[in-house]
């Protein structure tokens, strides 16, 4: 799926589902097992990226590398701040999870 569709799916998740924005809160959701999908922005440092990938591997959660930086990811979430990482807890009406598989 192209970059456009992930944006629209994210918008739907923001509207109808539950998500957790930010590194600290995404880690918390990964630890508790509530995260269904992690989206990482393109400009997060490789160390942090691999750390989250390791956590997600242990939690058996899929990771999506967003094509765009944290500014773009924040805009895609409809926020006026930068979002380096977010975790989708409940997709709502979106099919964002089905596309990953």
């Amino acid at each position, binding site marked *: 799926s192209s970059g456009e569709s992930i944006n629209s799916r994210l918008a739907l998740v923001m509207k109808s589902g539950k998500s957790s924005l930010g590194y600290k809160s995404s*880690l918390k959701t990964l*630890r*508790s097992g509530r995260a269904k999908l992690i989206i990482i922005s393109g400009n997060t440092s490789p160390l942090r990226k691999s*750390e989250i990938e390791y*956590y997600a*591997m*242990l939690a058996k959660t899929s990771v999506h590398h967003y094509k765009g930086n944290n500014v773009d990811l924040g805009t895609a979430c409809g926020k006026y701040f930068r979002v380096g990482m977010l975790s989708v807890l409940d997709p709502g009406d979106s099919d964002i999870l089905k596309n990953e598989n």
Partner: protein
Amino acid sequence: VVIILQGRYAGKKAVIVKNYDEGTKERPYPHAIVAGIERYPLKVSKSMNKTKVAARSHVKPFIKVVNYAHLMPTRYSLELEEIKSAVQSETFQEPTQRAAAKKVVRSSLQKRYLAGKNKWFFTKLRF
């Protein structure tokens, strides 16, 4: 098995004995009781005699209650039934209980090391 990230024991490997995903009244955050290895056994080589090997194979343990945020989980695991009964939340109330619990941890970890199992756990993390 986890790696402690903060505090005096940062960089040391530990086993989760009991975890509290919801937290307790005294600690309203997710935390775990861990038993870790404070001083790793030194490297032994074939040319050393028995007493030297025995002295270099000592394991100094620690027990601690740690916030999840200060732990890095790993894919490794270490099963230790004896520790589970010795180290509980009551153990941390008195220093004498702590010392007794550490003795149990020490003996079981020492046995594990000498049996040659869980080699990754007993090697120092280089950083």
